[in-house]
Every structure is written in structure tokens, then in C-alpha cells.
């Protein structure tokens, strides 16, 4: 097991280095002078020179890369060309909003996806199976931003049940302790703000969680059907276990293995989907911030966001792989 962990950890290092090279190269791959690109065609020579100096663009390429990586490791991602603020401060201010949205979306996806997948597998070819699997198929093909717009139209505009956009009503003011409004409002014992934050979260989380939910439902169903054919499930039934015991104790535990891997891989999908969902719902997370940065060619923001998200993605994949090896001895023995 230890050798597997070491091997897997070592394997992640070149990938991380590769991502850092790719992200670093961005600014140099763009056609034209990077400083001029960021400041615009009409920038004067002094500002362009100052930016070149500030970003170290006058230094040899290798030295620039070394500085980029060593600064990034220390959490220094440079200064935003637009706001003049350190990129990491702006990132950390917005990151909790994206994480909160992604976690709620993932919880929704796991609960509904697992439930629909298990029932569909157990009641195969029933009306529930057909309806849930058709919904899941539609969910996989659904553009997340369109689903978001439709949800806004029906639940916010037509029915008036939920807010159209944003993270919290203007009448509420929450002290940012963790940056997660659900937690911060509870810490402040402001339950009205908590309820308001919940209401703001419902539609974006529903939109963002639909594709992962559909994938989890389809995957769980397929995996459960496969496992239900196994001898040990037949033995459990023969022993006189109830259907609930067979499903929850014997089948589900084994059927969940591929599902766990898929859930791990979904973190990337969620972050990517968050970019589109945040734009639709004016959610003040890193997605919306990143798109503004792309439109304004604020490279330090684009570079840092890409590097941090890719690193999180790689680390989560690593954790999932290791967890998988703990659950499934076949992996580590191979």
C-alpha cells in the first residue's frame, strides 16, 4: 500500500509541473507584447514599461518561470492589472462562494442521483425506472446555463418563489468568518439571513447539480444491476435477508466503488459548470471573476485561477485514487 501511495504521489508531480508550464506559457503564447495586450493598444510607453518591470517580463524566460513557480508555491500570484490588488486576496474573497455553491450542488446530486439509481436498479423496467433514466439522459445533455435561465424564469419570475440572482438579500449583512454564508449566518445566529442564503442557493445548486446527478443516477443503476447478479447477493437472499438488507448491506457497498470514482472526477465538472452557473445567476464567485478577467485580458487572474483549479483537481483525483485503493485491495495489489 505504501509503495502504491508513493508511486501515485510521484506521478502527480510531473503533471503539476506540466500544468505550471502550460499556465506560465499562456502569457507568452498570446500574439503580441503581453504588457501591451493587458493594458490595451493605447497605453503609453511608461505604463507598458512599468508593467513589464512589475511582472518581470524583461527577465530571461527560465528565470521568469522559476519566479512564477516559486511565488505561486508561496501563494503569491502577482497583482491584478485591472484592480491593482493582489490576485490571491481577490481569489480568496470569491472562492468560498464557488465552493459553497459546488458543495451544495454535489450534495444534491449525490442524494438524488444515488436514490434514483438504486430504485431504478431494484425496480428495473418499472415506470420509475423509465422516468428517472429518461430524466437522467435529458440531464446529461442539458446546457447548464439554459437550465439556469429556465429555472429563473419559472421559479423566480413566474412563481416568485425564489430570488433571481445573487448570494444574499441586500437587507442582510453577514460578517465574513469562513466566507460560507450558510455557516457564517449560523455563527452570527442570524437565522433569517441563513434562510435567505438557502433560498439564494436553491436554483444555482439545482442547475449546477443536474449533470452530476444524472451521471451518478445512471452510473449507480448500471453498477447496482451488475452487482445484483453476483453470487454473494444470491447467497444473502438465500440466507433470508430482507430486500432492504440485501440492497443496503450487501449490494450497495460494492456497487458504490465505481460511483465514488465518478464523484471524485466530478469536482472538475462542478468547477467548470460553476463558471457558467455563476454567470447565469450573477453569483459572486471565481467563475464570473474569471470571465471578466478573460474579457479584460487580466492574465495574472487567468493564470492563478487555472493553476489553482487544476491543482485542486489533481489533488482530489489523487485522494480519490488512494481512497479507491483503500476500499478495493485489487487496485493496490496490482
Amino acid at each position: 500500500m505504501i509503495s502504491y501511495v508513493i508511486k501515485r504521489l510521484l506521478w502527480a508531480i510531473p503533471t503539476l509541473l506540466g500544468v505550471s508550464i502550460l499556465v506560465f506559457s499562456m502569457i507568452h503564447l498570446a500574439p503580441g507584447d503581453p504588457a501591451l495586450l493587458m493594458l490595451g493598444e493605447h497605453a503609453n510607453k511608461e505604463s507598458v514599461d512599468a508593467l513589464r518591470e512589475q511582472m518581470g517580463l524583461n527577465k530571461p524566460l527560465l528565470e521568469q518561470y522559476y519566479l512564477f513557480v516559486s511565488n505561486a508555491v508561496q501563494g503569491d500570484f502577482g497583482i491584478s492589472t485591472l484592480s491593482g490588488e493582489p490576485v490571491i486576496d481577490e481569489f480568496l474573497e470569491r472562492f468560498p462562494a464557488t465552493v459553497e455553491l459546488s458543495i451544495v450542488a454535489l450534495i444534491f446530486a449525490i442524494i438524488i442521483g444515488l436514490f434514483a439509481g438504486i430504485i431504478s436498479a431494484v425496480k428495473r423496467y418499472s415506470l420509475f425506472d423509465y422516468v428517472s433514466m429518461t430524466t437522467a439522459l435529458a440531464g446529461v445533455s442539458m446546457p447548464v446555463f439554459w437550465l439556469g435561465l429556465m429555472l429563473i424564469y419559472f421559479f423566480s419570475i413566474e412563481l416568485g418563489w425564489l430570488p433571481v440572482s445573487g448570494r444574499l438579500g441586500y437587507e442582510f449583512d453577514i460578517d465574513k468568518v469562513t466566507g460560507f454564508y450558510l455557516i457564517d449566518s449560523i455563527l452570527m445566529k442570524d437565522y433569517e439571513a441563513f434562510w435567505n442564503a438557502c433560498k439564494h442557493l436553491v436554483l444555482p445548486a439545482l442547475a449546477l447539480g443536474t449533470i452530476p446527478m444524472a451521471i451518478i443516477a445512471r452510473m449507480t443503476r448500471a453498477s447496482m444491476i451488475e452487482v445484483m447478479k453476483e453470487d454473494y447477493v444470491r447467497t444473502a437472499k438465500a440466507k433470508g435477508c430482507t430486500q432492504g438488507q440485501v440492497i443496503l448491506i450487501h449490494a450497495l457497498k460494492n456497487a458504490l466503488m465505481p460511483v465514488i470514482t465518478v464523484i471524485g472526477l466530478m469536482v472538475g465538472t462542478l468547477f467548470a459548470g460553476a463558471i457558467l452557473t455563476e454567470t447565469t445567476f450573477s453569483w459572486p464567485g471565481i467563475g464570473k471573476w474569471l470571465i471578466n478577467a478573460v474579457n479584460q485580458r487580466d492574465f495574472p487572474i487567468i493564470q492563478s485561477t487555472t493553476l489553482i483549479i487544476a491543482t485542486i483537481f489533481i489533488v482530489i483525483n489523487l485522494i480519490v485514487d488512494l481512497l479507491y485503493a483503500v476500499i478495493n485491495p485489487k487496485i493496490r495489489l496490482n
Partner: protein
Amino acid sequence: MGSKALEFYKQFKKNKTALVGAYVVVFLIICAIFAPILTQYDPLIQNLDNRLIPPFWSKGGSFTHILGTDDFGRDMLTRVLYGARISLTIGIISVSISLSFGVIMGAVAGYFGGLTDLIIMRVVDIMLSIPAILLAIVIVSILGADLFNAMIAIGIVGIPTFARIVRSSVLAEKNKEYVIASRVNGSSDFRLIVFVVLPNCTTPVIVQATMWFASAVLEAAGLSFLGLGAQPPTPEWGAMLADSLQFITTAYWMIIFPGIAIFLTVIGFNLVGDGLMDVLDPKLKEK
């Protein structure tokens, strides 16, 4: 060959959902090709007197503009139909880029193995470690935001998936007897890869290309929605949805129809891909 095609068609027909997908795809192709015949309006010419007319079933709507008009008085049906042309073009160009580079990288990695394989597959791993839409955004931020660059970006994003698939197929094929026989006969590496090994690796590539077509349309619509792909007044479905955001309270038809078009295209190609997988390589589905 004729009997093989017939057999394929018979098998494909058995899968009802795949058949529905195929009908949707054929319908889209017809819409794209015959758009100028199917509608009398121009997708770009503005008519401000006809702003925000609702569809014919809504109050104030008429059969002159069946699906209503947008904020510049342009016919929605016309723009959705012409949008099919753009989306299918995006699919074709993006898949061609992914396919050509992915096949070359995968074939070279799988066939030569060793250091070549290690380097190529590391590059592939690095590309896969960045979520697809984020990588596409990064590439667009380098190239600049427009529709053609978005197609290139989506094409590049698809390369690693094709490379992985082709590599594993080549690895499975390269030590088979027919390849060894051809090598003994004096075939060069190039000839072996292109004419002997690759023709036997087409099945998973065809399935993946169909699935990736759906993803390409979806990603391109996403990029355009973010303002990083097609720019106004291009009748691209994602860009049309971005435009509809400000009219969400007043003109529901501007949100609904471009979205349905994207959804139908994506689900159509996904169903066809699923059906192809069933017919061409059922084992692939089990994997």
C-alpha cells in the same frame, strides 16, 4: 460491404432511442442545409418596428413570426434555423481538429511506446487535469474571443480524449499476427501505422467522434454564452441565450428556443453515439 452496411443498419434500427437520436440529427442537418428555403427572413437584418413580438400562441403573436422576434426585431425561427448551420460547422471543425491531432498522438504513442509514449501521455494527462471548459477559456484568452478561435479551443480540448482511445486501441492491435506478418514483409513503420493498424482502430474513434460532436456544440454554446465565442449579431444559440438574459422578465421565447435547439442537438448526437457503441462495439459500453 453492402451487406455489412445493411447488417449495421438492421442492428442500429433495433435500438429505438438511437433511432430517435438519428432522426433528430437528420432533422438538424436538413434545417441547416435548407435554412434559406425554410424561412423568408434574414437572420441578421434588424427590423425595430417588430421588436419582441411573442410566438403565435401568445397574446400579441402572429403566424408571420411563428416563434416571435428578438430585441432587434429579427425572426427567432430564422435565427434558430441558421444557428443549426453554425453549430454543425462548430462540431465538424472542432471534431476534425481533435480527431486529426488525437489520432496522430495516440497512434505514435501506442505504436512506438517507451519514451515517446511517456512524453505524449504526460502531455495528455496535463491537458486532462484542467477541466474542459476552463482549458477552452484559457485557449480563447490566448487567441482572442471569437467563434473561430472558440472552435480551435474546443478542438484542442478534445485532443487528449482521442489520443487516449487511439493509443489503447493501437496497443491492443500492434502485436497481433497480421501486424507482425506485415512487418516481416518489410512494411515501414509509417505504412504499418497508417494502413495496417489504424484501420482496425476505427470503431472506438467513430463512437467518440459522435459523442464529442455533442460536447463540442455544448462547449461552444457555453463559450458564446460567456461572450468568448460567437459575437453578436451571429445567430449562434449560446450567444442568443446570452442576449436573452436582459429580457428574461419580458420575452420568455428568447430563452426557450435557442436552448431547446442546443438540447436537441446534444441529446441527438449522444443517442446516436450510444447506439453506435451498442452496434459497433458492445464491449466498449461494458468498460
